[in-house]
């Protein structure tokens, strides 16, 4: 070992010490043995009384560890014979919190024993919190965790498990309309707001105890027993460095031992309403044509016209024909009228949209004997969405647990998921003609498909190739039949675990999980597609002298395949200890985990492709060929690509709790993560994390006598975690590549040498109160938390003279603070004979702000973008919105801002002042909801149940779009605010929409779009879903089922209230809004 350098030895030592600790623990377990008591020569008979809460039966079970058991009588009295000291008596019943009395000496027996028992909140008792590493009862943890059970998961329909969590818990927010370049923000969900600025934003997803690396859409929601959302640091810190954004633990349904065979099933069908295409903001074609005529007269299109080949919109073609005298004024009008009189939205709905249809079927079989339990679940989802994009998913899962001998349990499971999908028809507004919004007709009077001149003018493409080229027209009604994209995704997930019970209170568990997902994305364009014809034509080399045409890209289709294989394996060794010593109980787990996640990808493109008979042809990817029209040389697009990444982690963790008399609970956890951070110093590869918590069950105290509030518990937790972005390093790092021009391999520096990078530091403190009213009529919890992040990564506008490849660098530049409140309230409003009404209220407040930021772009002008991305500005929320002060329109219809305090239309100077000192910019407010939640009401009458969820999002602002002259000129996008624009003197009094100006002045438009008048309050209340179900009484109907329910569900029912006066849905601005979904289904078991 002579060659071992210090750093390595140190690290090795650290690793070893953690392991030694584990080993030591194993030994301790062996040597620990029960304490033998002192046996009495003459047993002593005693009596006692158990007092239970009012209205409950008095019978309680009494038992001792070694000397049998007894029960209380109908008024709560019991008798016992003490045969040894110490004697521990335990009192229990399912609906009560267990109690315990320890008798150590004779004097303890002098007075009758009186035990006061407290009612357990019934639902809480059923709930089991899974942290992924252990399962605990809510009262056994200090952490703040929301559990969403199968019933609540069933309240929403759909194929994605995460979608079903929304509105069913507090603190969970779906971030709508937020763009973030961060690749680790796939779910769009945040738990308790933000904890980082530039780091990963997704909560960690855990499935059955292991980090889930697959696609969340692989999971069959019908096979999920419960989802636990770990919110505070104490709950999540066991998951280490990636838990900073909260952890969502998903647990699959399992069979139990000693369970008779049960088969349950679910079948439902969903249809959706047709989309409302008015969500796509475009004025009537008649007005678009008027604008085009104006631009045409001004010579705007002359540059395009002069080259002869660039596509022109159909209106411009007509104006041009008229200018050349090829058509009469009357023919022009007739041509224009054809476009004006067509309701394009209606045409589009007819041709390209449907109601969509989703069918979901699921069956599961469960059974258990004394030594074995098993379950099989199978599910099929299939359907298509409103634009006919198809989807399919098959799930199959088998799980079993076997008691090999009384000490050794083997659990295994295997699940398979197969998904596929294919593209649908073109979305409204997605087809451009000559880079302008298209408005041509789709079909002629006889129903034949009409061509659209997407890239090139028809009269050019018809003649240029002297008949040698392929048809260069684009047919919107045909293209989707010939150019399709699709995907196939398969996942295999295997799990095995051996649990060995060393002692009653100590077990050792070794588990392993392997996951592998293959994803293939395919884009096929057959020879008839515009995509293929365009490419073949563009690369065709026509010898005009001989008329011989050479196809550089062979005449035919193309096949673009992209494969990705994601795999992960995790091995874990864990010791669990659970022991009661006298009035104390100790829970402890410690473990080590080793994990690897790999991604291998490859892609290629084949040309001349045809599927039947199967063929493709080789092409030259290295040479450059002149474009048929422009003459610009370029290589054939495509070629090959390869990706290979592997992330490795080693973790050591421990979690312990000590509880005294069930009243006080002290808990703590520690974890140390190591990962293969590329380019980092060894010390930076390892990061310790810890948390601590204190719980106090006030209602268990002897002095506690609020009988109306039988459950009252306080917990306080604190935890520290970290975050390292795996892509940030201290050395200049690069990637290899090759260049076809130089033919030399090269190295491109992708990260500048940045030796000052440190881990992000995050801490969270959490204070929670749980309470339950008598009779369980009302129960709930309120949690208050504060988060503090320091040394956060932030993009830092630096002097790019130093590098030039990027305007921003990542540095530890920011501190942020978040605070909020999560509250849940569950009440049984009416518990009547046959009629019940219960409510669940989820209420969340979240505020986050940047408290420190070392950057020169630290100004309000950075927030003009509309709050769609995280932008740190000291003292303001991470998502916030600012706007130019609005000075109204001037007498010529120009929007006015402020310059040095005075009204101005010098937009360049206004923008410069905004960047310099932001004196002309107002801070408006947060751009993400600061208060949100939902109210679920369930009404049941006999066998009917009606429940509905009303959700709200308050306290935020969004930027609406409006009319922009530049857009109207440049892309033919004519926002309907065009009708409200300033047109003549005096209009400035009644409108805020500026006049249409030409030539374009983009600075004027960008001033207006970022002005105060275009920011609206986002507050809204919406009706999320209504659920109606009928429970069939199996005995009455004499059907061979144990349970049978039929249900109907309507989802996304729209806004009930909104703060803005413009009729806009602030969460779905400028897009075709969410469509309503209607589901009917049946579920049951036999």
């Amino acid at each position, binding site marked *: 070992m002579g060659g071992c350098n210090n750093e390595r030895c140190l690290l090795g030592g650290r690793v070893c010490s953690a392991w030694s600790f584990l080993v030591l623990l194993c030994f301790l377990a062996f040597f620990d043995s029960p304490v033998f008591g002192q046996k009495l020569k003459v047993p002593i008979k005693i009596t006692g009384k158990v007092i239970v809460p009012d209205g409950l039966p008095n019978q309680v079970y009494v038992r001792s560890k070694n000397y049998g058991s007894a029960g209380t009588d109908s008024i709560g009295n019991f008798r016992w014979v003490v045969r040894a000291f110490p004697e521990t008596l335990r009192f229990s019943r399912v609906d009560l919190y267990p109690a315990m009395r320890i008798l150590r000496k004779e004097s303890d027996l002098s007075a009758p024993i009186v035990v006061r028992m407290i009612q357990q909140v019934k639902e809480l008792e059923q709930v089991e919190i899974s942290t992924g590493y252990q399962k605990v009862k809510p009262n056994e943890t200090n952490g703040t965790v929301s559990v969403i059970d199968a019933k609540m998961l069933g309240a929403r329909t759909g194929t994605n498990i995460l979608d079903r969590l929304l509105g069913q818990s507090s603190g969970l927010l779906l971030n709508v309309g937020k763009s973030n370049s961060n690749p680790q923000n796939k779910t769009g969900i945040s738990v308790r707001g933000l904890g980082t600025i530039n780091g990963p934003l997704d909560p960690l997803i855990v499935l059955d105890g292991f980090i889930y690396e697959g696609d969340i859409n692989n999971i069959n929601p019908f096979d999920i027993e419960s989802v636990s959302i770990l919110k505070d640091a104490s709950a999540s810190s066991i998951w280490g460095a990636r838990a900073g954004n909260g952890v969502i633990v998903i647990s699959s349904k399992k069979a139990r031992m000693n369970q008779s065979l049960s088969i349950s099933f679910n079948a439902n069908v969903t249809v959706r309403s047709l989309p409302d295409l008015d969500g796509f903001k475009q004025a009537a074609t008649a007005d678009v044509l008027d604008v085009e005529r104006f631009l045409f007269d001004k010579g705007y299109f002359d540059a395009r016209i002069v080259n002869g080949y660039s596509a022109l919109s159909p209106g411009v073609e007509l104006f041009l024909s008229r200018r050349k005298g090829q058509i009469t004024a009357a023919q022009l009008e007739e041509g224009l009228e054809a476009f004006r009189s067509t309701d394009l939205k209606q045409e589009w709905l007819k041709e390209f949209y449907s109601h969509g249809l989703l069918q979901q079927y699921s069956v599961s079989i469960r059974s258990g004997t004394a030594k074995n339990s098993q379950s099989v679940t199978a599910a099929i989802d299939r359907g298509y969405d409103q634009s006919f994009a198809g989807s399919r998913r098959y799930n199959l899962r088998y799980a079993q647990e076997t008691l090999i001998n009384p000490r050794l349990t083997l659990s295994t499971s295997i699940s398979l998921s197969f998904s596929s999908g294919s593209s649908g028809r073109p979305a409204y507004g997605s087809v451009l003609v000559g880079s302008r919004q298209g408005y041509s007709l789709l079909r002629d009077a006889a129903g034949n498909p009409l061509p659209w001149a997407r890239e090139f003018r028809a009269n050019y493409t018809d003649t240029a190739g002297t008949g040698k080229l392929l048809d260069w027209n684009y047919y919107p009604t045909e293209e989707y039949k010939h150019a399709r994209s699709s995907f196939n995704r398969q996942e295999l997930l295997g799990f095995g675990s051996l649990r060995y019970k060393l002692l009653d209170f100590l077990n050792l568990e070794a588990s392993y999980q392997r996951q592998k997902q293959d994803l293939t994305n395919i884009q096929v364009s057959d020879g008839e597609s515009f995509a293929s014809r365009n490419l073949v034509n563009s690369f065709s080399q026509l010898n005009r002298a001989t008329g011989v045409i050479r196809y550089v890209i062979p005449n035919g289709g193309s096949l673009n395949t992209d494969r990705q294989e994601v795999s992960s394996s995790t091995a874990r060794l864990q010791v669990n200890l659970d022991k009661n010593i006298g009035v104390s109980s100790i829970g402890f787990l410690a473990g080590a985990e080793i994990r690897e996640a790999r991604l291998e990808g490859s892609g290629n493109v084949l040309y001349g492709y045809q599927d039947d008979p199967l063929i493709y042809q080789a092409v030259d990817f290295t040479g450059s060929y002149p474009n048929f029209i422009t003459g610009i040389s370029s290589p054939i697009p495509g070629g090959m690509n390869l990706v290979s990444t592997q992330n490795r982690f080693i973790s050591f963790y421990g979690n312990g709790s000590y509880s005294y008399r069930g009243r006080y609970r002290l808990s703590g956890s520690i974890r140390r993560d190591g990962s293969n951070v590329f380019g980092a110093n060894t010390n930076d590869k390892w990061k310790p994390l810890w948390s601590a918590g204190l719980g106090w069950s006030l209602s268990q105290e002897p002095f506690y006598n609020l009988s109306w509030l039988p459950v009252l518990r306080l917990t306080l937790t604190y935890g520290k975690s970290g975050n390292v972005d795996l892509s940030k390093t201290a050395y200049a790092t690069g990637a*290899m590549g090759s260049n076809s021009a130089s033919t*030399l391999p*090269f190295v491109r520096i992708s990260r500048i040498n940045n030796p000052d990078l440190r881990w992000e530091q995050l801490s969270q403190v959490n204070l929670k109160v749980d309470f339950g009213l008598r009779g369980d009529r009302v129960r709930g919890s309120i949690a208050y938390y504060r988060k503090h992040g320091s040394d956060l990564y932030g993009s830092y506008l630096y002097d790019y003279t130093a590098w030039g490849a990027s305007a921003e660098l990542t540095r530890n530049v920011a501190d942020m603070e978040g605070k909020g409140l999560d509250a849940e309230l569950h009440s049984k409003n009416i518990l009547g004979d046959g009629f019940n009404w219960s409510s669940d209220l989820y209420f969340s407040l979240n505020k986050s702000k940047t408290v420190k930021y070392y950057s020169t772009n630290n100004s309000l002008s950075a927030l003009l973008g509309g709050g769609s991305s995280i932008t740190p500005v000291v003292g303001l929320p991470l998502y916030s919105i600012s706007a130019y002060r609005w000075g109204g329109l001037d007498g010529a219809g120009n929007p006015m801002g402020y310059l040095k305090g005075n009204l101005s239309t010098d937009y360049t100077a206004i923008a410069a002042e905004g960047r310099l000192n932001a004196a002309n910019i107002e801070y408006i407010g947060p751009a993400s909801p600061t208060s949100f939640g939902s109210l679920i009401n369930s009404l049941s009458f006999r066998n009917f149940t009606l429940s509905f969820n009303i959700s709200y999002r308050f306290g935020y602002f969004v930027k609406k779009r409006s009319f922009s002259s530049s857009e109207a000129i440049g892309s033919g996008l004519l926002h309907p605010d065009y009708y409200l624009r300033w047109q003549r003197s005096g209009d400035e009094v009644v409108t805020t929409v500026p006049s249409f100006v030409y030539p374009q002045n983009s600075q004027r438009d960008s001033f207006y779009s970022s002005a105060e008048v275009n920011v609206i309050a986002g507050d809204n209340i919406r009706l999320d879903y209504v659920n109606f179900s009928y429970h069939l009484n199996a005995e009455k109907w004499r059907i061979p089922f144990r349970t049978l329910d039929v249900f109907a569900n309507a989802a996304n029912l729209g806004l009930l209230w909104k703060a803005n006066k413009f009729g806009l849905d602030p969460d779905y601005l400028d897009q075709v809004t969410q469509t309503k979904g209607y589901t009917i289904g049946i579920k049951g078991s036999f």
Partner: protein
Amino acid sequence: MLLLVCTGIVMSFMGCEKYLDIKSDSKLLIPGKLNEIQGILDDVGQMNNGRTPSYAEAVGGDFFLPTIGTLNQSVRDIYVWKKFDYQFPNDWSNGYLPIYNANLSLELLDKLGRNNKNAVEWDNVKGSSLFFRSYYLYLLTAQYGLGFNSATSGNEPGVVIRLSSDFNIRSVRSTVNECLGQAIRDAEEASALLPDIPVVLTRPSKAAAFAQLSRIYLYMRDYENALIYADKCLKIKSELMDFNTDTDVLGLTLNVPFKKFNKETVFYTEMSTGFGLHAPSSARIDTALYNSYLPNDLRKTAYFKANGLYQQFKGSYSSSASVLFSGFATDEIYLNRAESKAWLGDIGGAMDDLNFLLKKRWRVSAPYSPLTSVNKIDALRKIRTERRKELLMRGLRWADLKRYNKEGEEIRLQRVINGVSYFLEPNSLFYAVPLPADIIELTGIPQN
């Protein structure tokens, strides 16, 4: 038993630091080996293509925009030499990226050390780094600094000289003298280390280093040195394409008349697209300039094609009608030499160089009558006219305009929008074009 298992596991985890040593992305590397440092300099996408400054070409006056009246306000401002705010990405960032790569390479090279085994590669890497640093420093100075004047350039601001990859070092503007001095020192040092001819023309060479020195000295109106280095360059590489017959000429009427890496190319770079004004597809060649090509001048066919009423440039050595070649080619060096000779009084030698070049551009079927001159003024005028006609759209005109105006040529540029004329006076301070607004805000260095 359990003890054994535990011990075994502990042993197996002893190697866990090794387990974490694996690369997280197989494509990643921390460059340190010589071939990897060479790889940084071989990154054509960052070192050569879309790199050289374009603002100067956009305002240089060889073209006009017939559709300017319909374009956006900011484009119209640039077009008529009005100051306007622009930000990343731009010529500044484009130019300083290869300078960073060069500095990083030099630092990595220092750690590596030179020995007998690696001497050839080591020298090439070092020479290349120095050359690239010199190349972009000069181009930025020629764009952002006022023209060279030995009396004032010691006080007038040039650009930022960066000699380290450490981004914490504050940027300050050095004088034009200091910038050009650094560029000369780097190029001289590079010329001693580089091979005569490179493996590929995107790599620097001795010929390129001499061409660079000739170009800088010409800009400084140090015609003696400009001549010396032009001579040295042409000693290594002197070939010209004969537009009539050369195999590197694909066809004069074609959209792409010349091969890439043709025999005239000494060092290959491409101009950045910048503000887009000078893009061949939108820029139309100044009518008078186009008309100055005689009918039998093959450049008239090779360089231009009609687009609407006017002519569009297609004579780039980049094998693309849309990408402008901006590196060194022998035609430029011949013209450097001719001009230097003329300035120094060798009228005969000067006209010989000029005629040698022009004859290669002349239709072989038509008789070529050599240009002659009797005096220095006339010779310089002829050479400079031909220089403009030969080297247009290569990003050279702006530096030439500054030089000529420093010599009192009083060239006044004019542009017209909607009938209104705008002028750029010969001594305008705008000849040092404005720096990016964000750089001024971030560093506090003075704006032009």
